[in-house]
């Protein structure tokens, strides 16, 4: 502090929040019952996690049913995309070009990936009670993925990429051995 500064002011009064924190109310003031609550307020909702106690906790069978319902939704999800894929494949034409090739590759990649992770897809619904009930769900899921692959095969066939005609196997085609030769007699 500079020695010739202005005269020292008295220290400023404490801010209100310091006073509030250091002079705690000894007893809870009786609140006036006519004061309305704020919109959305319910008794005991202030603070956290207390409102969840008011809901009854679901029984294990109920959660299992919910799990199964969710699992069925997940399993049937590919069925919804099959018609769309079919229309797209039908419309995109059978010529070999980048877009139709990409779409067709996707049609094989996605189901294969899904098939390799069936276990982990349904792992969150899996427990010892639901394990046996999950089998039909998984089978439906696998079936739908195979249907998607079948769609892909149909498309590849349409593009002429399947080696199912005789001309695709020309390398193994034997030269025809004639039983007899006939020649014009040159006389």
């Amino acid at each position, binding site marked *: 502090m500079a020695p010739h500064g202005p005269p020292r002011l008295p220290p400023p009064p404490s801010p209100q929040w310091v006073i509030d924190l250091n002079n705690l109310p000894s007893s809870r003031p009786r609140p006036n019952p006519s004061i309305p609550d*704020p919109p959305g307020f319910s008794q005991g909702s202030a603070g956290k996690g207390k409102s969840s106690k008011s809901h009854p906790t679901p029984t294990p069978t109920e959660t299992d049913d919910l799990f199964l319902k969710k699992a069925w939704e997940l399993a049937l999800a590919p069925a919804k995309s099959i018609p769309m894929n079919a229309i797209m494949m039908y419309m995109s034409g059978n010529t070999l070009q980048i877009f139709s090739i990409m779409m067709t590759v996707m049609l094989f990649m996605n189901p294969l990936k899904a098939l390799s992770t069936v276990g982990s897809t349904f792992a969150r619904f899996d427990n010892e009670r639901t394990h046996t009930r999950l089998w039909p769900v998984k089978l439906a899921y696998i079936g739908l993925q195979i249907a998607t692959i079948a769609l892909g095969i149909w498309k590849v066939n349409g593009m002429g990429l399947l080696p199912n005609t005789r001309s695709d196997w020309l390398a193994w085609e034997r030269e025809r051995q004639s039983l007899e030769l006939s020649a014009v007699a040159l006389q």
Partner: protein
Amino acid sequence: MAMLKLLLSYLSIHPSPLRNPSTSLHLSQQAPAFLSSSESTKDTQETWLIYEQLLLSCLRTGDDSSARVCLQRLSGRFGVDSARVKALTGLYDEATSNSRGELESVLQRYQDILKEDPTNMPIEKRRISLLLSLGRTEDGIEALTSLLSHSPNDAESWAHLSSLYFTQGLYQQSVFCLEEVLLILPNAYNIFARIGEVTYISASAGASGTNQTEAFEEAIKYFARSVELSEWYLRGWYGLKLVTGKFIQAKPSDGTLRKMESLNQLATEKLLQIVGRFRRNEKGWMGFDEAEILAAKNLIDRDEQKFSR
């Protein structure tokens, strides 16, 4: 040219001059010179902004005649029916009334305006603050809740309602309102600290049905969150130190005790650092309020005395 530029640059340095008595005094002292200068007749956006700020600061410092001129020019430009001018007129009437009866008549006028046009937000807010200054807190709270039920995105009104509940001892409702503010402004560190304070006070007042240690822990979490968001928030560190100190006195189990002691230690260090740097007038550390620095120093001294005894 000079006057307008001067005021504009002043307002850009102090964007809300009403927050501080000295800035509003400075602004209101410029008012007569500005009003008589030739620039005051310019019709630009900045001029009207200055008029509004001048009006407010003149009312605050008691320069009613300049305020009257400002108000007349504003209503001449925008018409007396504009919602904002109506609110400013009401404010002028409130500031110049001398008796309770006059204030009541202003209140009556607000209610008439609201009956005609219930969507006039500025008047609705004026009515609330007038009710509060008339000491009718309950009516004020009721009006504020109805305002919030139709415009729930108003963070300032939530904070205001929270402080009103706090004065009435309704701590649960107060915390609820602050949580609403957090929903709108999730990074408001001051609100986190305030929730901590209200939780602590409500626990100390023996709010029904809550475990005191649990509530203290809750308050500590809020304070910690506030200083996590803003490292040099004095109020957050203050609360953290105070409540962890109280917690240690209550002799908790071993694991929590160690945690609380290290938190208390950290808060003490931070507070000491703030106080020291403020006292040494370090650059960038002068923004603290002197009264708050003093309070922090007091808290540290009190704690030290307790240990040395």
